[in-house]
């Protein structure tokens, strides 16, 4: 835990956390699974932000991606399928001192967890929320997900799924009190890192959809995206997620997009010709339910006693 800080100044008083301090059990995802890359990037974020591991909590549901907390050496809550967000909201409510991260799969978040997804966006409590969208049910062996595109052959739709895939972004953006929505891809660590950084710094509910490869059940799904950089649209803005020039240069296809413009964000989110990556929307001023929730956490016992007695007086005969 005491390591060398990158600027080589030794500070023995203050612990310096290095990457290893965030590494939990060995990751057991398939080789080539996009989740590995996200894990590495998140560990880097924790290190860069020097988050005390004991003050950091990763909450997840059930799914391949939801094993994430086990691979961190922080506190973790690997709960029920679809129910990561209510748990995370509960943790956040009275513990403003904790750093809360949420990991969900597309089934977890956009199918069984839909109600919590919508409502926790609305609560706008500070946390970093990652949707690992591999367009498939990984852990249960390849069933159709709501985000599977039409025609996906899966174990529940062997001759191809019927409905167009659910795009999670317009719904997210459509929730009243939404405050931060971004998209990134698992194969661009620099962009992912920049996105996570922005999310971490956001004072509210920071939602990131990560387009994630599942070589096991959705092999080759993003081949075209990977092969053809023009299929990716890099949303560029000084208020958005900025990239080092050498990375940004990869994307010939750029658009200026002001993340305070919700309608423009929706327009981009609905595009099907290209996949936009970057910050769709941010508003730092939205009402935060966790601020309300934690306002009285330091009520002293005397006050509690006094209040109880006041109430008992009210009921006294």
């Amino acid at each position, binding site marked *: 835990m005491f390591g060398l800080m990158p600027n080589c100044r030794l500070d023995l008083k203050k612990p310096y956390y290095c990457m290893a301090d965030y590494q939990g059990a060995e990751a057991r995802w398939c080789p080539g699974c996009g989740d590995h890359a996200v894990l590495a990037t998140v560990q880097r974020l924790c290190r860069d932000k020097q988050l005390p591991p004991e003050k950091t909590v990763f909450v997840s549901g059930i799914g391949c991606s939801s094993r994430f907390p086990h691979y961190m050496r922080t506190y973790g809550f690997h709960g029920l399928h679809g129910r990561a967000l209510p748990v995370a909201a509960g943790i956040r409510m009275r513990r403003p001192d904790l750093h809360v991260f949420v990991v969900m799969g597309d089934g977890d978040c956009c199918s069984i967890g839909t109600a919590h997804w919508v409502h926790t966006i609305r609560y706008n409590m500070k946390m970093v929320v990652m949707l690992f969208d591999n367009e498939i049910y990984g852990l249960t062996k390849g069933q159709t997900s709501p985000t599977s595109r039409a025609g996906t052959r899966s174990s529940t739709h062997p001759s191809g799924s019927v409905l167009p895939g659910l795009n999670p972004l317009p719904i997210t953006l459509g929730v009243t009190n939404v405050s931060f929505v971004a998209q990134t891809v698992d194969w661009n660590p620099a962009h992912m890192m920049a996105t996570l950084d922005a999310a971490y710094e956001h004072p509210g509910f920071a939602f990131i959809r990560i387009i994630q490869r599942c070589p096991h059940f959705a092999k080759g799904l993003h081949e075209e995206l990977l092969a053809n950089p023009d299929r990716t649209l890099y949303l560029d803005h000084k208020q958005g997620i900025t990239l080092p020039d050498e990375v940004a240069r990869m994307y010939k296809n750029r658009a200026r997009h002001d993340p305070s413009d919700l309608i423009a964000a929706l327009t981009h989110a609905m595009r099907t010709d290209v996949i936009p990556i970057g910050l769709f929307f941010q508003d730092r001023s939205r009402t935060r339910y966790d601020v309300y929730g934690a306002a009285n956490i330091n009520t002293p016992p005397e*006050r509690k006693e006094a209040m*109880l007695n006041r109430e008992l007086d009210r009921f006294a005969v």
Partner: protein
Amino acid sequence: MKPGGATEPPSGTANPDRAPDLPDLERIPIEEHIVEIVSDSGEGAQKAGQSFGTLSAKMGNGVWTVEIIPAEIQPPQRSRAGASGIRIRLGSGKVTNMGDTADLVVAFNEQVLYSRIEQGALRQGTLVLLENKWATSNMPEIREAWVRARADFERAGLDVREVPMETECLKLTDNPFRGKNMWVLGLLCHLYQRDLEKAEDQIRTIFRRKGDQVIDLNLKLLRAGTTWARTHLGFYYDLPTRMSDQPLVVMNGNEAVGLGAMASGMEVCSMYPITPATSVSHYLSEVFRDAGGVVHQAEDEIAAIGFAIGCSYAGKTAFTVTSGPGLALKDEFIGLAVMAEVPLVVVVVQRGGPSTGLPTKVEQSDLLSALYAQPGDPPKIILAPATIEECFHFMITARQLAELTRGPVIVLTDANLATGVQPYPRPQFKREWLAPPIDQSPWKPGVPAYDWDPETGFSQRPIPGQKDGMYVLTGLAHDEGSHVAYDPETHERGCNRRSRKVAAFQSTLKSPKVHGEGAGDLLLVGWGSTMGAIEEAVDKARKRGARVSSLHLRILSPFEPGLREIFGGFKKVMTIELNYSDSLADPYITPGNRRYAQLAWLLRAKTLVDVDCFSVVHGHPLQPAMILEVIEGELARLHGQPGRRLETAAPLATGKDPSCLA
């Protein structure tokens, strides 16, 4: 260990300030009385009754109130289905249940009175004070209905006196619809010789937010009611009062749950609205924030319990409150709380089931569901308060047990406790009730997150923020370190440790105490809100020489010890419950396939004693007379007499006889 700090009935001294003699009026001495006020919804009968109850408690009477709730939010006026009101049972001693039939009814119209007759709430000779403005209505159908009703009531044997409520109120206000209730309160104040000053204080409190004008008007109405009654009724009741030595509080069970939660040191109530549980959160919403707590209204029941579990996991043990349909949605998370050992309090205010059932009515039909709903049969603790006082204290116990056993504790109350009002000794706050502050000292390195004591299964839990305590909670099978592990030994060990916690807690319990003698012919076993009615019936039967006793269970998982031994002292054991059981008289039903009442079923498995049951799902609280009939029937059968089995007691002609009550 005994849950809560429930106390014995308060001792006290008889009140020396007896009401002055009123030589011109007949004095009717009584030991207890059942009063009902019934009106159309919106006329304020409940407010008048609650004030009357509180006032009576303040004067030193025992009190129990039960609301009469219409099925609709805004039912049609002057309809039987719309009867809204309240029953107040008063006694010179402690009162523990709604009693049987009413002695006095104040009715705002004749249709709502029909509804009370249909419900079996009245008896021959019940005194009825009936608003008589309908006799002179300008709508002929109303006048006709009135005449028909007067005849019906007479035939049914009610003692009806007409009261010109509206006429009298109109002397003071243009809108008697809103004022009549306080006039009625005044009337009752005379009849029961309540302290008028206290009544006036009461009015000042109720209307404190409405301004002086409203208060003044209502004070005038109150006094007018008193005066009218003294001048026109010709009698009053003399009910001895007995001021308690101890200070008392009076509230309903949902308020008691809310207050108990505050006193327990829990800071979060996470809920989704559902009748009859919601008013716990209504009450808390008013006061909790000032007391350092918060009510979270979630998007649904699943989110509500998930949120509570999140709070608990982060060190702030929380509670959720719901009723049957909501409980069904919480089961998956309750299973997780057992499996991953998260302290949690789940309050279930039972209503009539199955399914949406009878949302406003009482039942005790969620016991099996609370105990067994979670797949995999995870062990947990279930408490059932029997009184409103216990609603308060059990919340404190529940929080402590949840922390001690690192798991969920379910508190089963019901619609009768939820809305019933009763005085009880004012709790003396103890600082230790509050939860200790979250432990944020470093965790001892090397100690696993589930450092199960091999004897008890207990372990201390790391709280996020504790250095070196990091672990990943999971609902999958896991070892001491919370690592997922599917090997046989690990899963067997985990299941075993979680079960042992409950057994270790059980080993600290004492046998429950029998009410009555420890041996005899018949033992009635009950749980929850029916205690008062059962014990009253047992006392009455014992006075008549019956060898009957009762036993009331407050811990339903694990059971308190010694039940089998206690049962052994009686020729017959039967439970009295508010849930469904097959009747042996029904077609196809044999002792071999009968569905038993829920506690009876559990006790059979537990003790192998042939525990019988009497249970009903009639939607209202149990009444002593019905139980008394059961006792007498059973004793007759035990003594070789034929004995009939009653499904319901039938005081006064019920609505079934159309010739009497068309």
